């Protein structure tokens, strides 16, 4: 889905606030947030693609205002409700206040009907598609051309795996793009490598 999480190339966020030996966690509750969603994954309540997709389904306003670990806990809460572990009302009651969840999901999809294998050196184009459900194609490569550098082992196809849709595992290709092709007249020269699922690619 085209949503706020798809940040690559967005402008106006200002300087990176960087410190040496920067901490992973700033408070004990952040450790708890990370631990609790990991525990739910470990127990098979949901998988990582469902987890990522529930973050993507947060309203843009909430996504931008929330810290990283508030996004984690919102995804966990949303999926606990959607999987029937608790109702939204009871969750709010337990929390003693409002409890914002992510928005409902659109349907997922299976592997692309015309997906094809590539080999290193192949020139490829990222399909010009807008997907309603979960997708791991950053918007900045949509419709863009690149070169296949290598192939990964097969992974669960996220567009299906986040929605309980049956699909074949598929490889990703390490595809090299030029930043100046991705954002003509709007990027500094660099090569940008993206791991692109087979279903997202077509031959040129």
């Amino acid at each position: 889905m085209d949503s706020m999480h798809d940040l690559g190339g967005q402008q106006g966020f200002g300087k990176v606030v960087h410190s040496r030996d920067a901490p992973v966690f700033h408070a004990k509750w952040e450790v708890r947030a990370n631990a609790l969603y990991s525990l739910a994954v470990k127990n098979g309540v949901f998988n990582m693609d469902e987890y990522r997709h529930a973050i993507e389904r947060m309203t843009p306003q909430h996504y931008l205002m929330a810290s990283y670990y508030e996004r984690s806990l919102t995804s966990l809460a949303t999926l606990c409700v959607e999987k029937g572990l608790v109702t939204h009302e009871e969750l709010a009651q337990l929390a003693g206040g409002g409890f914002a969840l992510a928005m409902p999901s659109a349907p997922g999809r299976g592997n692309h009907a015309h997906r094809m294998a590539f080999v290193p050196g192949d020139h490829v184009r990222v399909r010009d598609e807008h997907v309603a459900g979960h997708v791991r194609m950053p918007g900045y490569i949509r419709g863009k051309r690149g070169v296949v550098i290598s192939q990964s082992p097969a992974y669960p196809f996220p567009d299906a795996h986040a929605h309980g849709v049956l699909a074949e595992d598929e490889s990703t290709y390490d595809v090299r793009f030029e930043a100046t092709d991705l954002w003509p007249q709007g990027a500094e020269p660099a090569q940008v490598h993206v791991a692109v699922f087979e279903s997202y690619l077509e031959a040129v």
Partner: protein
Amino acid sequence: MTTHTPPMASVEQRLDALQTVLHRQGMQPAEFIDTFDELAHEHWVPANGAGLIARAWSDPAFKKLLMTDGIAAVREAGLSMPLHHRHFVVLENTDQLHNVICCTLCSCTAFTIIGLPPDWYKDLAYRSRVVREARTVLREMGLDLPAQTHIRVWDTTADTRYMVMPQRPSGTEGLSVDQLAALISKDALIGVALI
């Protein structure tokens, strides 16, 4: 007619509620939080990745394994990665080429090897900007690369995981693997610093 929306509960209160839900399911969340805390702070540390790099600098056969089959090298070194991380790619810096990793869609990392991502890696500014203006972002973060150095940015959009192999500093020929590893920071393994 207006509807009344209660003020949002604090993050701690919301987590308490979620912990109660998981507890009712018999998942023993309190115990797992302690386990996770220890894993995150004691086991998933950048010293793991630093050790792999230092050994690769010192042992050409191990370097070959690390560069061609990262998962096998991780296992060989007695480390581990989660099963869903099926591919581990090590990116070697040279005089001509500098690599830097990111995750524009969320904040994926090889967390068992380089540690969970630092705060700035997860922030909106790094995620949005590094793919589009890497040289400026690196300079702002204190890494001013020579103009002739090419930059490659690696966006972690699937379950392939990356780690940068920094260049071995000159004058370190006599150092042991442990001494070399101590020179390598988490920032260097992400590619936002040299050593």
